[in-house]
């Protein structure tokens, strides 16, 4: 288990996930800084990501698209607000149109990533996600069906259980 904590606030639409790795902060930073490595973890296997423009310098815009099982290619972008290798990065992420320009139908979200050494050759990474709207979250989740599906049964069970307890 490398995920050590998850904190969610449905009212504020925020989530913080904390994970620990047996690696140096520099190595964990590379997962973000090297687009070829980023491509291997950002999208699920059914929705791999391709980063066509990538630079983590503050003020830069990163561009990527994902490729779905039916050939659909949703696009996204990151605006790098702050970056301090290998310890922190603040990204405003949004959806893009087919021509790569930001899709203004959706407000942008924000990810604040912190990477710190915790001793014994271990590194802690925590990510604060701030979602602009449930609509934008839906959109993000639509690009990760497989992982959504993995959860689906448990989730639907929970919904049904909730409904059952409500009506009883």
């Amino acid at each position, binding site marked *: 288990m490398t995920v050590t904590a998850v904190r969610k606030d449905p009212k504020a639409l925020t989530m913080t996930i904390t994970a620990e790795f047996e690696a140096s902060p520099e190595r964990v930073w590379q997962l973000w800084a090297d687009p070829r490595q980023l491509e291997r973890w950002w999208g*699920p296997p059914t929705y791999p990501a391709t980063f066509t423009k990538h630079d983590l310098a503050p003020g830069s815009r990163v561009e990527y698209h994902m490729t779905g099982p039916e050939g659909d290619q949703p696009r996204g972008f990151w605006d790098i607000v702050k970056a301090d290798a290998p310890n922190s990065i603040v990204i405003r992420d949004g959806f893009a149109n087919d021509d790569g320009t930001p899709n203004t139908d959706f407000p942008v979200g924000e990810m604040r990533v912190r990477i710190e050494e915790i001793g014994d050759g271990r590194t802690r990474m925590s990510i604060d*996600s701030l979602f602009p709207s449930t609509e934008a979250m839906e959109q993000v989740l639509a690009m990760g069906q497989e992982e959504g599906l993995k959860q689906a049964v448990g989730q639907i069970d929970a919904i049904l259980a909730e409904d059952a307890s409500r009506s009883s």
Partner: protein
Amino acid sequence: MQLTPDIDRVFGALADATRRDIVRRAINGEEGVAELAGHYPMSFAAVQKHVAVLERAGLVSKHRIGRRKVVRTNVHGLAVARRLLDRYEELWRGRVDRMTALVTETKETHA
């Protein structure tokens, strides 16, 4: 307990982008099928069919307000957000798993 058919139905209903959008719009429960149909580039009949699929899955229901019938999502808005966050957590857990695999992989190659 026959849960499986319901799960399939709920998930089948949510597998369509238009239907997910209807569920989202119907959280406020102020629009009828005709008003909902105005949001999509498709016929009234097509939207009516989508609403019927959602109704059968128990995701929305129709309520009478005076002479009007409005479509309402059966889950509380906050519950929707909570479920979305749960799914988002899964998405990130998947990402962290892949990150861990990458970090471990490079360690082994260097060893």
